[in-house]
């Protein structure tokens, strides 16, 4: 009997730098994607609620397209399609290039969800707020910027937070775009040491370390910043 398959955590000691490097890659990827998708998502939601029908249509089309396409397809497309077939590359250094290609596809995908959570947030702002803003003469951009969005952002914290947590978990799919992060490292260790329970639990715990504090922070913030009505 070889009980190592159930209890031996030593592969982590042997590969500690690689594992830490892989999780650092996950963090960097998630952070960059988080920022970019927040910017793009805000832009999209502004388009989706704007008075201009064409902009609204563009926003809706974007969200429907990216929200309903599997992330796996988008990321494989970034790697094999954009980089290898269309030769759109950001850097000659392979790891830098695959990082930005992954961030590009991943942000494009996540932005659709950011947009939807912001829109859900806008929908929680009572009608009277918008009416009052208009009554004092604010035009669309100002009422959005000064009255609606500040309240909408606060109401969006909970859904945005779950998008954030989902995004961290989704970052594992990036391995199909050829960027080495935690999931790719786990798969490599499965090949080198066998798919043992400790390796799986170690990586699962690593992700919990990333997602659980994020979850707590989000629920704390959403309670603290909730608009009392």
């Amino acid at each position, binding site marked *: 009997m*070889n009980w190592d398959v159930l209890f031996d955590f030593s592969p982590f000691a042997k590969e500690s730098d690689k594992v830490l490097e892989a999780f650092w890659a996950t963090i960097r990827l998630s952070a960059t994607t988080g920022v970019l998708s927040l910017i793009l998502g805000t832009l999209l939601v502004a388009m989706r609620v704007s008075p201009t029908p064409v902009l609204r249509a563009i926003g809706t089309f974007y969200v429907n397209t990216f929200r*309903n*396409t599997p992330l796996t*397809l988008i990321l494989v497309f970034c790697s*094999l399609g954009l980089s290898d077939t269309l030769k759109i590359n950001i850097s000659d250094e392979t790891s830098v290039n695959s990082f930005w290609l992954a961030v590009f596809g991943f942000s494009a995908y996540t932005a659709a969800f950011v947009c939807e959570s912001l829109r859900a947030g806008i929908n929680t702002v009572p*009608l009277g707020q918008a009416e009052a803003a208009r009554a004092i003469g604010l035009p669309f951009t100002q*009422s959005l910027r000064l009255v609606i969005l500040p309240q909408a952002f606060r109401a969006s914290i909970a859904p945005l937070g779950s998008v954030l947590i989902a995004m961290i978990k989704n970052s594992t799919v990036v391995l199909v775009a050829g960027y080495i992060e935690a999931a790719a490292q*786990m798969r490599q260790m499965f090949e080198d040491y066998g*798919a043992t329970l400790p390796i799986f639990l170690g990586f699962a715990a690593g992700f919990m370390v990333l997602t659980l504090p994020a979850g707590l922070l989000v629920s704390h913030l959403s309670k603290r910043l909730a608009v009392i009505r």
Partner: protein
Amino acid sequence: MTTLTSATPPKKKSKRPKAEPTVLFDAPGPKARRRNAILTVLGVVVVAGILYAIYHRLDQADQFQGRLWKPFVEGSTWTKYILPGLGGTLKAAVVAAVLALLFGVVFGLGRMSDHAWLRVPSAIVVEFFRAIPLLLLIFFIFSGPATIATGLNREPPHISAFTAVVAGLMLYNGSVLAEIFRSGIQSLPRGQSEAAYAIGLRKNAVMRLILVPQATTAMLPAIISQLVVLLKDSALGYIIAYEELLNEGFKQIPANYGNLLPAAIVISVIYILLNLTLSRIATVLERRSRRSRKSSAPTMAAGAPTQIESGMGNAAF
């Protein structure tokens, strides 16, 4: 709840009074109309620019050759690759959905049990599978059992890619569904169960006769939107070579014809149509259950901000 962004966009020739298209902005005056026109032109120009850039890139890479697109108008491509792939996707999704619903009911109810020995393990299981990435789970289910069985001198089980995908989807989505069930039942007014206990029903009967039927109506949209997530997640099977739509359409077809980009476009259109149809069903059900007054529970919208883990907040969808 009244919403700021009205579901129906303002139509120029609609019978609705022009003054109230949506609450966010007034009916456009002359200045606003001019600005709208400018933004419209700008939007069209930017989109046209992006489309042209894409077209140009594709053209440069010779992606508009007829031979790359021809396979998609031939019946054999569809019968040989796309339809079997679609079948694989649907098979995995349907089996996983049924199992996930069962898993969700069992663990959702388990978490609400009065007995700690049931409640605590259920909570641990649900929280564990919700917190880890689905892909890691699929990898482990795919290759873990064989390694462990060999280590313990047992006959290694044969875990097919189908089993791994379905089991992963079941555990992950089942845990999310368990939470949806729990919050659905907890969202019912306390008076419902109190009244039921008052007329002498036991816990079992209260659940079965009073709470579950009401909660089901309220939960349906959230459940369906979770099933959309599940369907889209089945594309992760691509990574462990399960023969689903992405694998057949995006690996096999380009392997035969070298047409990666056209294949990507066709396959994503199929996915989008499939998911839009399912989401459409969710919306219709949501509207319907909003109309019916049989339940005292507020309808849990698909991906609404109150419902943290439904629709939006999930792994690889």
